[in-house]
């Protein structure tokens, strides 16, 4: 067995493990009644997604996933959950109405449709291999694309963040009557 085969086998193991963890964690996130438990399971799902990005050679996005999603956004969500003392849903009769069942059923049909579309898809593994693939997702090459070809969208994204910041401050400020 040469080095390349070990690499591929290792990637299979990592992919299957973290994919399983991601699906289980997101299922737990949807089904937990306590919002804090949901938030913590979602963080687990985000971390395993970051590992999956690493198997795709997207190092920069994997780190950004951990910092932006698992760090910043989830911290914000947990803060708001703690600010708002939530009534736990189960105390208000655990109702499963017809509408919810129909909605979930239609969503499962959506999943089957995507699966059917994938069967007619030619497929194939990553085209870039070896050294090229490892270089593709590095911070340097993503940065060159962001500050070169995508400079204008990048600036617009920074304005969007500024607007979001100002909007959040204005919304959360108490108005004195």
């Amino acid at each position, binding site marked *: 067995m040469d080095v390349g*085969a070990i690499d*591929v*086998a290792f990637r*299979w193991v990592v992919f299957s493990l973290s994919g399983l963890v*991601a*699906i289980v964690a*997101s299922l737990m*996130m*949807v089904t937990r009644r306590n*919002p804090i438990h*949901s*938030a913590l399971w*979602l963080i687990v*799902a*985000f971390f395993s*997604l970051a590992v999956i*990005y690493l198997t*795709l*050679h997207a190092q920069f*996005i994997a780190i*950004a996933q951990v910092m*932006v*999603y698992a760090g910043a*956004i989830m911290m*914000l*969500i947990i803060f*708001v959950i703690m*600010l*708002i003392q*939530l*009534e736990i*849903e189960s105390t208000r009769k655990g109702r499963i109405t017809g509408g919810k069942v129909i909605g*979930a059923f239609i969503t*499962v049909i*959506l*999943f089957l449709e995507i*699966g059917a579309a994938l069967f007619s*898809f030619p*497929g*194939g*593994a*990553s*085209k*870039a291999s070896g050294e090229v*693939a490892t270089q*593709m*997702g590095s911070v340097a*090459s*993503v940065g060159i*694309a962001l500050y070169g070809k*995508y400079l204008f969208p990048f600036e617009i*994204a920074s304005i*969007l*963040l500024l607007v*979001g*910041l100002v*909007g*959040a401050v204005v*919304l*959360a400020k108490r108005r004195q009557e």
Partner: protein
Amino acid sequence: MLQEIPTSLYFMLSAALFTIGAIGVITRRNAIIVFMCIELMLNGANLAFIAAGSMLGSIDGMVFVFFIMTVAAAEAAIGLAIFVLIFRQKGTINVDEINLLKG
């Protein structure tokens, strides 16, 4: 000798995550949990972008995911501020009871 991981598997995983998120949006009534489910759906879309970009040997998928993350961060800040405001006004964030825009 094992084959490389086919991209279809990544697409299936992304579809599964998207579906789980969508089921959560439909069945849960707590606005913050609905919000977290939307974040999970965004992550499913991100995974599809990265898998497609890696399959085509292009960096554009990663750049697109970067912009999606920017939008998600702005959305989180604004959305959570709105939840705090609604909670101050109505004392609940159950999405069935928030009907301020109903005429």
